[in-house]
């Protein structure tokens, strides 16, 4: 078949299309964004009209994908790891309902937090919800797994978790493409009550979920990704999960015959293979990208069996992503090193682009809030979070999507005045609107600044559902018309904007200031594409 050069994200998207995908659902989030983008740019997807619009958030994406599965078709939903927290309610319960058409949930973890607020390991969600979890070690395996994941999903009537990490998602590699599978036809579940989780039904379904988890261990489409290879020497056996296997191979390519190696890329754990390798080796090293999920299980609380090295005893750092050097050290191999970075090299943190409306908005905000002192501004997830850094030093929180609005409410409840939230337009429609309803409902004294750049900027400029709708949404939620102020954050409006902000801080009720100016990145892109059309 055809040979391709694809990012891990793109390989997953291509595989889903080749495996007869009918619907892709997602909210942008690094490092998962390129899965949906690839499908949106695909001629194949356009030709068959595969669903490929962004969802408002990960929960709506997950539920819509479940709906497509209900109708018998293959669906995929993709998100970053923290997005799975947003979708957790529907995800966990989709294990209870089960699926009809194959359903794959891709969760892209970001160990070392390159572009995230934590480094949670999504494999825990697989174990927690009792669904199969695939963890590819390379891009080709990610491609191949999508086909098996759909098959497993349909055979066991379960959603399947596909857990990837930043390095796999954002690294390009050669891919061998497989033959195309046609889409499934519309067909409703055989049992009309399959998706009805009334307690009496849910109790029965939970029992069958528990027993199916055990039978998954013997499923060939799962177990074929877990391989044990014996070695000449039995001193150290190595268990490597997912992408950790690549770093292991990088180090022992020539000496691989010396080590018994168990590669794990699919869960539930292959208990028999783990017993096998621990039974024949004197000591065991466990390599996992993320949390020591497997290591904790193998050690148990007593940890009185075979000597185990891993993240829990400090052989591998407890946090952060792996690399070839960390793995070399863990095996006891020498580590090469170039020269130290000269001390004159300075940090270069990300910053606002030239011509960014957020930066003018924060300049006005800093002036308006100055008389009240520090500590009044709650913020959110997006480019504007960069205002936490000098020279702005404008914001005091960044927790999760939408938390600016609701934390401002809670702080106002405690007596903080003024209590201000700064949230982006896309983040607002993702998870800010319900918080605003809380504020309106009890007439909190809060000022919500929606920094509206009319796009989802941080992830590269995806469509924002807020565009052109913000005033209507806020009015519909119940904010008084005269306290919905629209400003244009430009340097020439600086003084006037600061005055408007100050006036709204002083208002003892809910006010919304929409700071509207198109993202300079998307504006430039748009102008370029407009000229090239001419």
């Amino acid at each position, binding site marked *: 078949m055809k040979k391709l050069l694809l990012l891990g994200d793109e390989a997953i998207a291509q595989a889903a299309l080749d495996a007869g995908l009918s619907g892709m659902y997602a909210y942008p989030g690094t490092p998962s964004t390129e899965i949906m983008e690839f499908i949106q740019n695909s001629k194949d997807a356009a030709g068959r009209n595969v669903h490929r619009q962004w969802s408002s958030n990960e929960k709506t994406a997950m539920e819509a994908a479940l709906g497509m599965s209900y109708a018998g078709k293959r669906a995929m939903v993709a998100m970053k790891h923290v997005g799975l927290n947003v979708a957790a309610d529907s995800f966990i319960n989709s294990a209870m309902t089960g699926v009809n058409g194959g359903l794959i949930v891709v969760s892209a973890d970001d160990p070392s937090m*390159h572009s995230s607020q934590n480094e949670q390991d999504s494999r825990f969600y697989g174990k927690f919800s009792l669904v199969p979890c695939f963890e590819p070690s390379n891009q080709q395996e990610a491609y191949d797994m999508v086909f098996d994941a759909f098959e497993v999903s349909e055979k066991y009537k379960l959603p399947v978790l596909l857990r990837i990490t930043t390095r796999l998602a954002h690294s390009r590699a050669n891919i061998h493409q497989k033959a195309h599978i046609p889409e499934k036809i519309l067909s409703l579940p055989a049992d009309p009550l399959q998706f009805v989780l009334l307690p009496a039904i849910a109790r029965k379904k939970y029992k069958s979920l528990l027993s199916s988890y055990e039978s998954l261990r013997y499923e060939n489409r799962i177990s074929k990704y877990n391989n044990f290879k014996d070695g000449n020497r039995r001193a150290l056996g190595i268990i490597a999960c997912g992408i950790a296997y690549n770093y292991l191979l990088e180090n022992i390519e020539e000496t691989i015959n010396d080590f018994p190696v168990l590669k794990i890329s699919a869960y539930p754990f292959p208990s028999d293979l783990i017993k096998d390798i621990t039974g024949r080796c004197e000591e065991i090293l466990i390599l996992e990208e993320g949390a020591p999920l497997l290591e904790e299980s193998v050690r148990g609380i007593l940890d009185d069996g075979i000597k185990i090295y891993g993240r829990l005893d400090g052989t591998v750092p407890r946090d952060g992503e792996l690399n070839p050097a960390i793995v070399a050290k863990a095996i006891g191999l020498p580590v090469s090193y170039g020269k130290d970075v000269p001390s004159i090299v*300075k940090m270069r943190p990300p910053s606002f682009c030239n011509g960014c409306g957020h930066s003018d908005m924060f300049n006005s905000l800093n002036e308006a809030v100055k008389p009240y002192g520090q500590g009044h501004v709650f913020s959110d997830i997006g480019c504007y979070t960069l205002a936490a850094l000098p020279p702005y030093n404008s914001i005091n929180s960044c927790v999760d999507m939408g938390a600016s609005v609701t934390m401002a409410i809670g702080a106002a409840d405690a007596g903080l005045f003024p209590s201000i939230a700064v949230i982006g337009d896309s983040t607002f429609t993702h998870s800010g609107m319900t918080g605003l309803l809380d504020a309106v409902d009890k007439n909190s004294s809060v000022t919500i600044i929606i920094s509206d750049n009319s796009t989802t900027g*941080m992830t590269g400029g995806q469509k924002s559902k807020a565009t052109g709708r913000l005033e209507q949404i806020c009015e519909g939620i119940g904010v008084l018309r005269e306290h919905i102020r629209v400003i244009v954050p430009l340097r020439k409006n600086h003084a006037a904007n600061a005055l408007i902000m100050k006036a709204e801080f002083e208002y003892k009720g809910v006010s919304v200031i929409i700071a509207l100016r198109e993202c300079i990145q998307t504006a430039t892109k748009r102008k370029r594409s407009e000229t090239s059309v001419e």
Partner: protein
Amino acid sequence: MKNDIIISGVGGQGILSIAASIGLAAVANDLFLKQAEVHGMSQRGGDVQSHLRLSDKKISSDLIPYGEANLIISVEPMESLRYLPWLSADGWLVTNSNPFINIPDYPAIDEILKEIKKVKNHIIIDADGIAKNSGSSRSGNMVILGAASPFIDMPFQSLENAVRELFSRKGEEVVQANLKALKAGRERSIALKV
């Protein structure tokens, strides 16, 4: 054959186009390739890097081990120094001489150049100036790729084909400007190397 290359710069300077060109050429030469990129937050004016690995054999790790890169290609001089822990003792450092200053404590350029000159094998070129002379001030990244091309084990023509392919949808004028920049960078580099 095995080339481990680190491409560095500041978000928005076009390092992904350099990586994509090498990637296309690698495919044409039937080589294995792995290329790890930085997406997301750092692209907003922060330091960005790409690990690019080419080989005639299968490649395991997406990341280059420390001390094993054959080549650092940098579109910004201070950024070239950030990746010295990866550069092998015999590796080459090819960098633009023009600083991109978007931080308040950017060091004196003379200090930076002094550090670069401590690297045994280095090429420092005025990519911005050469790009301007080639008729496209925006193709400094292609000048740098050209300057690095003598150290990449692929025929130069395959890089030219890759650049043509990469920019083809932007029209023939853009293609020609980038090819000119690529060639000019290569010539300058070969002159400096000797």
